[in-house]
């Protein structure tokens, strides 16, 4: 492939097409429909949800945990694989970063939708007490969004100059945007070195921050004296689970982008194959933590934990629990060991199932322990004793997914989805060899 062809191929997606407008219109309408549900919640109160005094955290918090989890993949792909010298990741780093930015940013909004009085949000900054894990969470999630944005933007700078020079047919605003954001990149030695250094620092910085966001999110549960939550392995349990969700979401995104932006020559079987192996690895680690998390308390069955565990193993949550463990975790591991299942289409299907399983996993982690407090739930209406999300609540949760899709769509459409500069550099290096 010539340099020119690569540039043309990778830049052909950036023009805002009719299809893109139609897609965004669809998303916007869906968003507004769902926002009406939020309006209902604001005016009536959180009573429109299925939450009550005993199970007082539900869909929103589970979804928040899931979003934070999904965003961790940016760090896994860019930093852990990138710093260990994996070259095959080049075409998918930006996808991973976009997913990280979108999920982490919307996670912040999801938590606001769970607040009884969002109008008092400023109190967190005015009267914030640093002993509350919520403050830690706000701090690290914000930091992670910023670093992820920088990790998205810094490698993009050279591509913006390339796009500015090579696409003359773009509307004025888009060219202007490229010009401003490219910061006069010409690609001289000084700029290249500066950029390399900046990316290097960011790649190292993002590792502890990413570990922190999900560890702290797990601490929201682990610090409470409740059976089912107060577990010492909750931190690593959440982090390893996050990689499963993240890798699955990148595989799904890879497949979609490869199809709609016709990137078959850049994202192809080998990438799906490698991602498949990565998914097996992270699933195995997560399975190991699952065994620890359930087998040990299940073996001892202490009184209060028993009610919670029974509901998972054989009670009201058992179908969901075994679906998550077997279909969402064990089956994918077995299937993905075989090469044919790591082909683009089958692996995408498997990734979708893993993704759904991971979402329900968060649901179980958040809801089940609350249904079994230390003291019996008595003298309250029946709907206080269990939790079923309402339509309003589901609509607000869908709104958060729509927002994530909107951010991913805009970032992947306005900017080249595969790093052009890095692809060219890689190619030149290979040619030299």
């Amino acid at each position, binding site marked *: 492939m010539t340099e020119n062809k690569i540039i043309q191929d990778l830049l052909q997606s950036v023009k805002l097409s009719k299809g893109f407008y139609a897609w965004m219109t669809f998303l916007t309408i869906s968003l507004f429909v769902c926002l009406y549900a939020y309006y209902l919640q604001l005016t*009536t*109160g*959180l*009573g429109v*949800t299925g*939450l*009550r*005094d*005993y199970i*007082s*955290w539900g869909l929103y918090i589970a979804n928040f945990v899931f979003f934070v989890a999904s965003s961790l993949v940016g760090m896994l792909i860019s930093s852990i694989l990138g710093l260990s010298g994996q070259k095959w990741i080049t075409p998918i780093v930006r996808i991973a970063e976009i997913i990280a930015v979108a999920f982490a940013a919307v996670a912040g909004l999801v938590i606001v939708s*769970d*607040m*009884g*009085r*969002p109008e*008092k*949000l400023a*109190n*967190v900054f*005015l*009267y*914030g*007490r640093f*002993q*509350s*894990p*919520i*403050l830690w969470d706000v701090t690290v999630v914000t930091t992670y969004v910023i670093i992820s944005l920088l990790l998205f933007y810094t490698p993009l700078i050279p591509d913006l100059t390339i796009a500015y020079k090579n696409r003359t047919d773009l509307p004025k605003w888009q060219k202007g945007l490229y010009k401003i954001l490219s910061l006069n990149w010409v690609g001289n030695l000084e700029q290249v070195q500066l950029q390399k250094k900046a990316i290097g620092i960011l790649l190292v910085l993002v590792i502890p921050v990413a570990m922190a966001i999900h560890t702290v999110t797990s601490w*929201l*549960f682990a*610090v*409470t*004296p*409740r059976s089912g939550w107060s577990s010492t392995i909750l931190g690593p349990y959440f982090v390893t689970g996050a990689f499963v969700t993240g890798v699955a979401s990148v595989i799904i995104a890879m497949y979609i982008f490869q199809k709609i932006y016709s990137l078959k020559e850049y994202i192809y079987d080998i990438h799906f194959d490698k991602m498949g192996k990565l998914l097996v690895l992270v699933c195995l680690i997560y399975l190991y933590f699952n065994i620890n998390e359930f087998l040990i308390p299940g073996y001892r069955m202490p009184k209060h934990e028993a*009610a919670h565990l029974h509901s998972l193993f054989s009670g009201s949550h058992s179908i969901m629990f075994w679906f998550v463990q077997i279909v969402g975790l064990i089956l994918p591991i077995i299937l993905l060991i075989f090469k044919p299942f790591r082909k683009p289409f089958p692996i995408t299907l498997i990734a979708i199932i893993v993704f759904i399983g991971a979402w329900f996993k968060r649901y179980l982690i958040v809801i089940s322990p*609350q249904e*079994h*407090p*230390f*003291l*019996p*739930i*008595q*003298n*309250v*209406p029946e709907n*206080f004793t269990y939790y079923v999300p309402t339509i309003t609540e589901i609509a607000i949760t869908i709104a958060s997914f729509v927002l994530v899709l909107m951010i991913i769509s805009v970032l992947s459409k306005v900017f080249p989805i595969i790093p052009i500069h890095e692809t060219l550099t890689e190619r030149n290096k290979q040619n030299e060899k």
Partner: protein
Amino acid sequence: MEENYKEPNKKSRRDFLKTLGIVGAAGASGAMALYFGQQYENIKSGKKVKLLTVDNKVVEFEDGKLKEYERQTEELFIRGREGIAGKSWVMVIDLAKCQNARKCITACQSAHQLRPEQYHINTLTMQDSQDTPAYFMPKPCMHCDNPPCVSVCPVDATFKRNDGPVLMDNDRCIGCRFCIAACPYSARIFHWFDPKNAVLFKDMPYDLELNVPQKLGTVTKCLFSADRLRKNELPYCVSNCPNGVYYFGDKNEDAVTNGTTKETVRLSTLLKENAAYRLMEELGQEPRVYYLPPKGRKGTLPEENKNNENHV
């Protein structure tokens, strides 16, 4: 005010005020000035009154400076957060006496603007094992000395007072419900909908010690009736119990008073002679509520009670 006396221009100031008073006598502004002028006269004459403050000190005041004091929301906030100096409130619940009359619950709910299903205090039917009969256990907030709810609150909306109670500032609360998640005693509830009779209470100044008016989207909880303690009265639940279940008092004085018989006993003796315990001691939250064991249980055995689904 001392400094004002020594001001060299006091003469002219006084004249000015007098003049202002005469000129403006017809108008509202003039009336104001007259008032200040009068006050100034009194200060000058040195007329003083003696007053007893809330912390038992006699102080002297210039007569003109005094006016009847109306407590503002702001002040209620400050004193509500500080607590009553020198006190250390504790509660003792004698489970042997509880017959599930639920008078404590209704008294509490009507004082705190709560609906029938909203409990600051809830009497539970406890079934510890299959072989022991059930017993009734009133369960208020434990007002822990190591409260997990206070630790996790991100905005200092719930706080531990010097005199013991864990209170709730619903003006500060953002409604994140982390405290509900953190409380092992399920002592906290949330206003999922508009509180009961919200319209009636709308314009009342917010009293932190009563937590009324209650607000939509905030957490509420048992307050040890801090407003009653301020007036030297027993909490609503304690004084409304017909069966003598509750003792309430000051740990520093080592004395608790029974809400029904009004008999005051020594706390340490009561705890010692009745094998008192605290709920879920092993969690280390250091509750301020003591229980006396449920001897002579009124409840039934589980076999006789199979239809009751509430037992967990």
